[in-house]
């Protein structure tokens, strides 16, 4: 279901519409693997996190890791999806050295999570709802190492058997922007839930993207699947390339062959990996080593009760409680760490109701702006939430002006330290003492008699006087006091 307008691609024969569906493989956050007790820790020496079960030794049997089931159910709940109280593990049979059993244990006909949906925000306040077809649990494979020997390949089974959630969307996505936003939103939900760390560089989150094109509103075209994408930007590029490739073929009177393709980010193109004819026959059948996965509604309800606040709920709350704009709210909640940072700032504020919105502006404009400029993320911020809250407090209580606050922010960014103490020690306090300001005001009026005479006819030139006073006070004068004082002295 698409509510937002989406991008159409222009071809020689007119506009084309993209139809996109995604399969996201998200590594489940758990200490041990889906069917064995081996560790899931990343980056171990090859083959140090391998149990007898993972290596498929003769006579070994899988035993389901309940935590992985809980994580899948939590994720299902976070995707507003139907939880299936009975699901079945199947074997997907294929030979490859990274799959010691000769099959992957997956869920084929009866997944643990059924249909759900995700609200995806786009630029300009637009949004689109993407349907979730299903979520199922399955085993990850090992990794082949081709660089250790000139004549042989080696295999590292550390990842083999680690739990993955495959999250399959409906073909509701209509352009690259939506696709990127969908992955980002899904990743955000998973991270809020703590069910997947979402680290795409480490491969914790990978996407297979199905792309087809059609005339707007026309029948669905033949799709191609782009496998194993691990960057949101590459996903966008691959979709654009693939859609244009398909349009070109169709406009030349050709046909799209259903196939699996790979994206080459260096060349910016997709290329064929295997055709439909070469596709494996996986010979799925229920794994006879495992009983059907069954649990009661109370199991689901207990997990639901403990679910953390998710981005959509948080966003609504920020708008309601602090009067933030919908846009600012969604910026703050997009990443779990950003939301946590903002909420910690809120916790530290002296007057949350008064300064909550200002704090949001400071987080978004000053902090995020600065972090972006330096290519850092919130976890690498040199200013912590407590320091930022102190700066906002100082403004809110009138101790410093917004302008001074920016200088203070810079000092804290560069040197660290307690903002309140810095204001004291460096004499940055705003001057609210009228007698001190009055002298400055009088001097400036006296030095500029013609401007003072004009101001009655041109009230907007009052700003010039304010600026002069602020400048003369080194920015420490309280602008409101200066304003009031000037008005009375100039008879406005």
């Amino acid at each position: 279901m698409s509510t937002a307008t989406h991008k159409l691609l222009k071809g020689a024969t007119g506009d084309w519409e993209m139809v996109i569906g995604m399969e996201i493989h998200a590594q489940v956050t758990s200490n041990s693997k889906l069917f064995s007790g081996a560790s899931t820790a990343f980056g171990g020496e090859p083959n140090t996190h391998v149990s007898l079960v993972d290596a498929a030794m003769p006579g070994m049997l899988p035993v389901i890791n309940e935590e992985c089931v809980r994580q899948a159910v939590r994720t299902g709940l976070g995707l507003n999806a139907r939880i299936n109280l009975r699901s079945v593990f199947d074997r997907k049979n294929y030979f490859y050295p990274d799959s010691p059993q000769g099959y992957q244990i997956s869920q084929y006909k009866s997944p643990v999570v059924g249909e759900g949906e995700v609200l995806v925000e786009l630029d300009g306040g637009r949004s689109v709802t993407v349907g979730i077809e299903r979520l199922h649990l399955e085993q990850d494979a090992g990794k082949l190492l081709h660089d250790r020997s000139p004549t042989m390949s080696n295999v590292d089974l550390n990842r083999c058997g680690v739990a993955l959630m495959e999250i399959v969307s409906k073909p509701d996505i209509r352009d690259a922007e939506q696709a990127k936003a969908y992955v980002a939103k899904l990743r955000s939900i998973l991270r809020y839930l703590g069910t997947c760390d979402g680290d795409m560089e480490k491969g914790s989150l990978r996407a297979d993207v199905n792309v087809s094109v059609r005339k707007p509103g026309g029948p669905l075209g033949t799709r191609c699947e782009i496998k194993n994408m691990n960057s949101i930007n590459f996903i966008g590029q691959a979709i654009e390339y693939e859609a244009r490739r398909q349009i070109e073929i169709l406009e030349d009177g050709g046909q799209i062959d259903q196939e699996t393709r790979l994206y080459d980010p260096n060349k910016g193109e997709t290329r064929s990996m295997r055709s439909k004819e070469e596709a494996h026959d996986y010979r799925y059948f229920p794994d006879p080593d495992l009983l059907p996965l069954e649990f009661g509604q109370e199991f689901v309800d207990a997990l639901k009760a403990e679910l953390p606040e998710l981005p959509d709920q948080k966003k609504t709350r920020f708008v309601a409680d602090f009067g933030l704009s919908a846009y600012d709210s969604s910026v703050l909640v997009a990443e779990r760490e950003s939301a946590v940072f903002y909420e910690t700032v809120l916790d530290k504020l002296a007057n949350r109701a008064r300064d909550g919105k200002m704090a949001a502006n400071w987080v978004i404009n000053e902090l995020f702006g600065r972090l972006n400029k330096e290519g850092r993320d919130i976890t690498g911020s040199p200013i912590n939430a407590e320091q930022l809250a102190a700066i906002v407090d100082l403004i809110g209580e009138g101790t410093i002006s917004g302008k001074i606050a920016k200088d203070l922010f810079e000092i804290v960014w560069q040197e660290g330290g307690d903002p309140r103490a810095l204001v004291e020690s460096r004499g940055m306090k705003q001057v609210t003492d009228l007698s001190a300001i009055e002298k400055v005001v009088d001097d400036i009026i006296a030095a500029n008699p013609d401007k003072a005479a004009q101001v009655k006819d041109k009230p907007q030139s009052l700003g010039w006087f304010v600026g002069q006073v602020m400048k003369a006070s080194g920015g420490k004068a309280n602008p409101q006091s200066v304003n009031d004082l000037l008005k009375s002295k100039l008879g406005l």
Partner: protein
Amino acid sequence: MTDLTSLTLAEARKGLADKTFTSLELTDAHLTAIEAARVLNAFVMETPDQARAMAREADSRIAKGDAGPLAGIPLGIKDLFATRGVRTTACSKILGNFVPTYESTVTSQLWRDGAVMLGKLNNDEFAMGSSNETSCFGPVGNPWRRDGSNTTLVPGGSSGGSASAVAALLCMGATATDTGGSIRQPAAFTATVGIKPTYGRCSRWGIVAFASSLDQAGPIARSVRDAAMLLRSMAGHDPKDTTSVDIPVPDYEAAIGKSVKGMKIGIPREYRLDGMPAEIEKLWQAGADWLKSAGAELVEVSLPHTKYALPAYYIVAPAEASSNLARYDGVRYGLREPAKNIIELYENTRAEGFGAEVKRRVMIGTYVLSAGYYDAYYLRAQKVRTLIKKDFEDCFAKGVDAILTPATPSAAFGIGEKGGADPVEMYLNDIFTVTVNMAGLPGIAVPAGKDAQGLPLGLQLIGRPFDEETLFSLGEVIEQAAGRFTPARWW
């Protein structure tokens, strides 16, 4: 002291407890017998040093009064059970000299209870066969011969080594596994007692898998009581096998000698096959009469889907096997044939490592699971399986306590006599036993008589789920009536 080998397990337990002899003496007697019987090819690996060490350990525990229920009893272990530090091959070339670093749950429970391991027993490759002729170590000889004949007969399969070794008095009991009859048919061919317990009664962890939804471990023993003693140690819930069932293991031995008076015994009319030998028919009748004399009531019952059991079995079992055997790929352990690339590695290794019967079943299994065939074969076979299960449930719902059938359609046959041109000829051996695996029920084979050529024949009793005790009670009635049978030694 060679007559120590002719004791039953129960008798040996008493002798050990009374200190009439030691476990070391008992073990040595069996090791000597094994050495003298190598022509039978029952053992594929003898472990005399380990056996004596375990026997000494048992003796010291007996001396301390700290003896487990099987303390000092020498056993043979089917080569399908992983034994730590001892080569385990499933009698397939593809496992090569595979030495597990782990012990199967079933055998570790036997060692926990004090039993002594004599060595590993021959079986059909990956337990696929009914004659023990598919083993990569060659066929096993049945200690029984036809009267006046020198022809070596098969001991049945797949647990042929287990049955032969127990019948030839080479071990006091043996572990075995049964996927379609692999405990009961060889027991019947060798005049030994074999029980396949209810699916889920014994852990499958550490047993080389053939068909996971059908495989079940059980003992082959010299008497019904011996089988009861062994099963008590072998059975039990195992968190490492989620298909094993968490219910207490009863004292099966206590069921021996319990009255069967008033028990209702079903005689299934569908098991009366066309062309069944008259002597099988006669044996079946004799079994019914013995149970009747013991006070049981006999009723004719119907198991209408019986005729579909064998075809359905030969879809389900190969389907699971084709997937279970995919791990034997030459990559991590076992045989690896030289190759230029990974596909060749798979092809060469599996072509060289698997025997003809295993290849046949892997191909059947791959075929029936293939896209476009799955519904017609695998799915339909599973439906048949549900119907077979329901047949039994209906029968038990009518108050039937157990079902009596022949164990096999014939006595043992000669090596090379069957299945050469038509594998189905061999598959028909399991016609009376596969239904029990398909339904997950317990079944016991008890020696009941001999055919005209002097070869042993057995009867099968099928019980309710987890009611092995009734089978032991009834089995002992047949054993008492029929007597025990020992082959004349020719080896």
